[in-house]
Structure formats: structure tokens, C-alpha cells
């Protein structure tokens, strides 16, 4: 029965356009956009980051409601979605930016959903007249997707007033304002330096609607991240190795130059190196001993304990690690 599209039906006083009190199917819109899947995978694959996730949820909800408003004929100016991601190294800024591109694509806010990641070198030229074409070229490539500017504060060098970075910023601002439905710009960097950057470029700050801060991970979250990484690399930890990893993370966090998830990834990569040389050395000494699948995928305690983080590293550490 489809009485809604037949205004001529007897006893039907409403117009053909959706009436004010007609319920719109939010559930169907949510399902059709498949944004639920992206948000779920975000929850599953990214550990912690509660404030980031809740902000992404808000944005997704806003875009979905906006879509429904447009369908109803209510005014629905596309919201400005330029963002700034601040946080310490290794807190997942790039990873989230990539997810963001996908979410915005699913919601129909950007047309292609690709991510163009650039730094100062890609935007700023070396001599007069070199910067504008270079920046435009990058912007042209990013249209229809997301432009991710890593360490954006390097664009502005206050100590050199003839620095060409200012020119790149001006072109960026112009495109951020005029081609809002073609491009989303995400700036990323350390919190304090980004704040200085925004203070000296108020135009940039005011055009960015979402300032998202990425908190540092707790020890428990780092362990969860390590497990997730190992699972993706198809490795397992033996029970003592698991204990060693916990200790490693606690010790490593207290040391300088700790880069959150990136440090964990590096530590695991070094453990893999040690495991490989351990298996290889044993293979050579036993001459022809076979290696089981379980050995191939298991990281043992000594693969982790050999790290320099544990202080007096055993002399037989085959991997020269620096931290």
C-alpha cells in the first residue's frame, strides 16, 4: 500500500512532499551508508582514543542527519569539516585520518575518499614563484578526497619573514574556504607547536571546525595494541614472553623519546629479528633440524628480554638496538 505518493486518494489531505510529521527512516539511512561498519572496525582495530572516537561518531551523526534534512527539503549547508589532529608521536593521527577519509566517503561528504598525505616539502617551493604552482598541484591531486598535512606547523616559520610557507598557507586558506565541498584538510602535529601555529595564523584556526586531541596510551592499551599488531603479523607470544612484553612497555614508557604505538611496533620488529636469528642459529648448529609452524609464529621470552630497555642486555643479543 503506497498512499503517500497518491495525493489524489480520497480522504488524503496531505501533500506529496514529505509532511512535517512524517517519520524519516534514520535506521535505513544509517544502514545504506555502511558507516556503521566503518565505525565498528574503528572500534575494533583502534585501541583507546575515546575522545577521538566520540568526535568521529558526532561527525558521522551530523552528516547523516544533514543528509536526511536535505531529503526533507530543509536547509542543509555542508558543514565545514576541516580538522586538526594534535597529539604526541605514535598516537594514531595518520591512521585515524585514513579512516576519516573512508567515513567521509561513505557518508557522501567527499566524492572519492582518497587520502593525500603531504609535509612542508610537498607544498613549499625553494625559490620565488615556485610555491604557488607546487601547492596548487598538491591541492588538485587531493580534490575529491582528504588532504593530510603532517607537521603542519613547519609551514609557518616566524623566524624568517621571507619564508615561502606563508604563501602556501594563503593558498590553502583560499581553497579551504571556496572549495569546501571538494576537499577536507586535516592538519596534524604536536599539540604545543600546533597551538603556536594557530595563534600566529588566526585565519587558519578559525577555518578549522574540529580540533581533536589524541591522548597518550596507557600501558594496558599499549599491550592491547601490541597484541593486535602481532595478530595482524600472524605471530604469537608465549606466556613468559607476554609477561616480558608488559614489563618492557612499562619500562619503555618511562624512557625518553617514547613514541607510543610506533615504539611498540619497532620493539616488535626487533623481536621478530631476534626470533629469526635465533631460529637460524639453531638451524645451523643442528645442521638440518626442521622448524615447526609453531616455532615460526611464536616469539619467546628471550626475544623480548634481549632488548636494551631491560638494562644489562645479554651479550648474545644479535640485534643492535638503539633503544
Amino acid at each position, binding site marked *: 500500500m503506497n498512499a503517500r505518493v497518491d495525493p489524489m486518494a480520497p480522504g488524503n489531505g496531505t501533500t506529496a512532499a514529505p509532511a512535517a510529521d512524517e517519520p524519516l527512516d534514520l535506521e535505513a539511512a544509517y544502514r545504506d551508508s555502511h558507516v556503521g561498519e566503518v565505525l565498528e572496525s574503528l572500534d575494533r582495530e583502534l585501541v583507546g582514543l575515546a575522545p577521538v572516537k566520540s568526535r568521529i561518531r558526532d561527525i558521522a551523526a551530523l552528516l547523516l542527519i544533514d543528509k536526511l534534512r536535505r531529503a526533507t527539503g530543509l536547509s542543509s549547508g555542508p558543514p565545514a569539516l576541516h580538522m586538526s589532529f594534535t597529539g604526541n608521536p605514535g598516537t594514531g593521527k595518520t591512521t585515524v585520518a585514513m579512516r576519516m577519509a573512508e567515513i567521509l566517503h561513505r557518508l557522501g561528504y567527499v566524492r572519492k575518499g582518497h587520502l593525500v598525505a603531504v609535509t612542508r616539502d610537498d607544498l613549499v617551493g625553494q625559490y620565488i614563484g615556485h610555491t604557488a604552482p607546487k601547492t596548487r598541484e598538491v591541492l*588538485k*591531486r587531493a580534490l575529491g578526497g582528504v588532504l593530510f598535512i603532517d607537521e603542519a606547523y613547519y609551514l609557518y616559520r616566524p623566524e624568517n619573514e621571507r619564508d615561502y610557507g606563508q604563501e602556501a598557507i594563503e593558498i590553502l586558506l583560499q581553497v579551504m574556504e571556496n572549495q569546501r565541498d571538494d576537499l577536507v584538510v586535516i592538519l596534524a602535529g604536536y599539540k604545543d607547536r600546533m597551538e603556536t601555529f594557530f595563534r600566529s595564523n588566526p585565519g587558519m584556526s578559525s577555518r578549522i571546525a574540529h580540533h581533536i586531541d589524541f591522548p597518550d596510551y596507557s600501558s594496558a592499551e599499549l599491550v592491547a595494541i601490541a597484541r593486535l599488531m602481532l595478530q595482524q603479523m600472524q605471530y604469537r607470544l608465549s606466556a613468559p614472553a607476554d609477561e616480558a612484553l608488559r614489563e618492557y612497555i612499562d619500562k619503555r614508557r618511562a624512557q625518553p623519546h617514547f613514541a607510543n604505538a610506533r615504539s611498540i611496533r619497532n620493539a616488535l620488529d626487533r623481536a621478530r629479528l631476534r626470533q629469526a636469528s635465533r631460529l637460524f642459529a639453531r638451524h645451523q648448529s643442528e645442521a638440518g633440524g626442521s622448524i615447526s609452524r609453531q616455532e615460526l609464529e611464536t616469539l619467546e621470552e628471550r626475544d623480548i628480554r634481549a632488548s636494551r630497555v631491560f638494562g644489562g642486555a645479554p651479550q648474545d643479543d644479535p640485534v643492535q638496538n638503539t633503544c
Partner: protein
Amino acid sequence: MKVTQGTFSFLPPLTDAQIASQVEYCLGKGWAVSVEYTDDPHPRNTYWEMFGMPMFDIRDAAGVMTEVNACRRTFPSHYIKVNAFDSTRGRESLRLSFIVGRPANEPGFALVRQEGAGRTVRYTTRSYATQRPEGERY
């Protein structure tokens, strides 16, 4: 006289939205889109000037449209066309080419007859516009 060269030239001029969706089709096929211009629209003039490099790494038609609009601003009274180049091995040639900008007034072509030996006549066409030097034609 409206110059009819390339695809869609017998249709009314394409709107920007139509150009964008044609470009979108080309990008979907993986072709490299480029913009060219000339003020000598003779049919045998296959070498138009390139407006920037062919755009090999562009994902969205909006990038091409900024280039088309920049070319229109720079050369408001030239012929402008959009080409799509297919780099597939063995093909390596243009797949699509259409005019997206033309001068307001197109004077057209004259038919030049040349008397040859034994009452033969050779025919050639000559654009009225090319009687003036380059850059002052339209």
C-alpha cells in the same frame, strides 16, 4: 561558423557539470586527462598548445575543472579542448577529445582554389582568423 572538431561537437556546448561527468568517466577508465588550447583551429592542426602537464595522478574531476577554468581565464578567446590519453600498452593514444571553450565570434574558413596544370583545381581551406598574427586572431 561553429568549428566542429572532436567528440560532442555537433551538440550544444556542454555545461560545466556535463564536462565534469565526462572527465569523471575518463578518470574512471584510468585515462590521463589534459587541457590544450589554440587560436588556429584548422582541422589539420593537431598540435595544440598544452596548458600544463597531462594530469596523470588526479582522482577527481574537480582537479581537472580547476585547470579548465584557469585556462579559460588565461585564454578567454581561444579554443580549449580536454583530451583523455589511454596509456595502456598497445593503445597509447587519445581516447577522447572534446572542445570545452571557443571564441565568441568564429569567422570560419575560406575555400581556396588553386589552378593546376591541365585545368585541375586543388582545394584547400584557410581560417579567416589566421590572416592575423598569433595572439590577435580572436
